[in-house]
């Protein structure tokens, strides 16, 4: 038997030393970005925020096997919480981000507790409905949210009372990068924990998990709440970086886009979010501007190709190529 596992940390590989040394490199390279690509900070920040959001979604879709088309509902709750607080004079970035996480987590608890008894198509429909509900509430409550015009007067004070959110977006960029790094470490630790393993067990065979004594609903609700908190954090970051909150942040379009970004990169793989988000955003930037009508056509084709040929996304393709190379080397 020579089969090797392709997912999940089993015994650490011999090359793990090398990998540990290489880990900080992409982070350092990203941190140096403003030196090489001045003017691109806002786009880069946007990507970082979306990676945080996609990571939160990966916990559900990739690890717990909960496919949702309403994740923007939680992102938007975070964005509006931070934004509205700032309008009413509570402007500290970290404090409002913390509040955003709490509100999103509470929302996740209520919806999760109600929805997660169901599964598959029913669950998918309920996640969609939950986000539509929040969208409509925000749309109608114009006195609070500004409705279709978006939330006016969003204004956050300086980070740590020192770094103002500048016009070029340098502060927002480094702030987002730092948050992403912390979220990445947290998610990585979570999926390596017994709790994280049990999520994959539930994804693989929930009947069997029940038969080994796992409280499935409780586990699923807990991961939903954690994911909601992280999505809310991403929403708060978005509000703070752009000093604006639009209804788009609660929209079905955003729910769909973030799911596509994750699947494009490869779900259940931790790094899928880091690949899929920039790939999607660059493609969108290139194609959607030139030819908005055909962007959706192109998106549709990309999705079909992905689902039919490469269900593991870009990372899945890379894994297969690596495995083939290793096999050839092993044979030679």
């Amino acid at each position, binding site marked *: *038997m020579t*089969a*090797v*596992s*392709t*997912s*999940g*940390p*089993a*015994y650490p590989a011999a090359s793990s030393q090398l990998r540990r040394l290489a880990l900080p490199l992409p982070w350092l390279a990203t941190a140096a970005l403003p030196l090489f690509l001045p003017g691109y900070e806002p786009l880069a920040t946007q990507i970082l925020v979306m990676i945080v959001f996609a990571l939160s979604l990966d916990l559900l879709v990739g690890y717990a096997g909960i496919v949702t088309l309403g994740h923007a509902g939680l992102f938007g709750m975070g964005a509006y919480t931070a934004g509205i607080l700032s309008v009413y004079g509570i402007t500290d970035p970290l404090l409002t981000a913390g509040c955003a996480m709490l509100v999103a987590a509470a929302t996740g608890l209520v919806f999760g507790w109600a929805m997660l008894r169901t599964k598959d198509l029913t669950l998918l429909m309920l996640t969609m409905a939950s986000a539509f509900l929040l969208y409509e509430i925000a749309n109608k409550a114009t006195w609070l949210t500004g409705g279709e015009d978006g939330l006016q007067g969003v204004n956050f004070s300086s980070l740590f009372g020192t770094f103002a959110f500048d016009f070029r977006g340098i502060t927002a960029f480094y702030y987002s990068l730092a948050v992403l790094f912390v979220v990445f470490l947290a998610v990585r*630790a*979570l999926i*390596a*924990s*017994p*709790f*994280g*393993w*049990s999520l*994959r*067990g539930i994804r*693989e*065979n929930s*009947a*069997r*998990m*029940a*038969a*080994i*004594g*796992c*409280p499935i609903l409780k*586990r699923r609700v*807990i991961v939903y709440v954690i994911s909601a908190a992280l999505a809310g954090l991403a929403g708060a970051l978005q509000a703070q970086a752009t000093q604006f909150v639009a209804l788009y942040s609660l929209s079905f379009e955003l729910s769909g886009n973030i799911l596509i970004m994750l699947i494009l990169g490869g779900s259940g793989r931790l790094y899928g979010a880091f690949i899929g988000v920039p790939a999607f955003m660059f493609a969108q930037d290139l194609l959607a501007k030139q030819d908005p009508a055909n962007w959706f056509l192109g998106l549709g084709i990309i999705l079909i190709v992905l689902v039919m040929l490469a269900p593991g996304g870009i990372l899945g393709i890379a894994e297969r190529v690596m495995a083939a190379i290793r096999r050839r080397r092993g044979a030679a």
Partner: protein
Amino acid sequence: METATLETRGLNKSFGSVPVITDVDFVLRPGERRALIGPNGAGKTTFVNLLTGNLRPTSGRVLLDDHDITELDEARRIRQGIGRTFQITSLFPMLTVRENVFLAVSECEGIAGNLFRSALRHRPQIERTDELIRRVGLSDVANTHAQLLPYGRQRLLEIAIALALRPKILLLDEPAAGIPTADSHVVLDILATLPKDIAVLLIDHDMDLVFRFAQQITVMVQGSIFAQGSPREIAADPRVREVYLGDSKHGLAAAS
């Protein structure tokens, strides 16, 4: 090691209007090695599902140490020590053998909800996982995905998962089905290493295995207990020969 007695009184189960289990009174005592045999469709799997809480009876009671557990769900009964394997293999296909077993170990030892420390750093549980894997002879494939194992070895993994839950009572539904006959002794070896005070109920069609393993045999036919006794008594019972065992080519001659 704690022990427990599992008992049913007047147990009935119908699917719609079709009775599948009728009036079964049954006792499994600590340390007992009992086989449950009977033709296909006799209701053996259904009976096991009633014992584990996977199914609810239409009427009658299930008792564990004289406590009524009829209303308890599967998860609670597992915590009280009722373990089982499935006739139809039920594993975590895309997880490794080690992950499969660890999931059961971590649920049993109450660390499965731990969010903060890496699973691999839970030394005692990891060691117990590896010990169980060794016991069923799967150490060489510990890091292989369960779905890549040949069927026979998947059956062994099933047993490791069941043992991980520290059962006081173990219900094995055709554990050797699909294991090549040449290897079915592995199952027997594992059964022989089980702690003496665990009660084991074995369902199997391999008469050689059944007669070597069991101290007591229960024969079920059409949902009722048809005969009960020692292997010698069962083998000598002409009614049993007629309805189930047929002729002596099942290894009955060797046992009697």
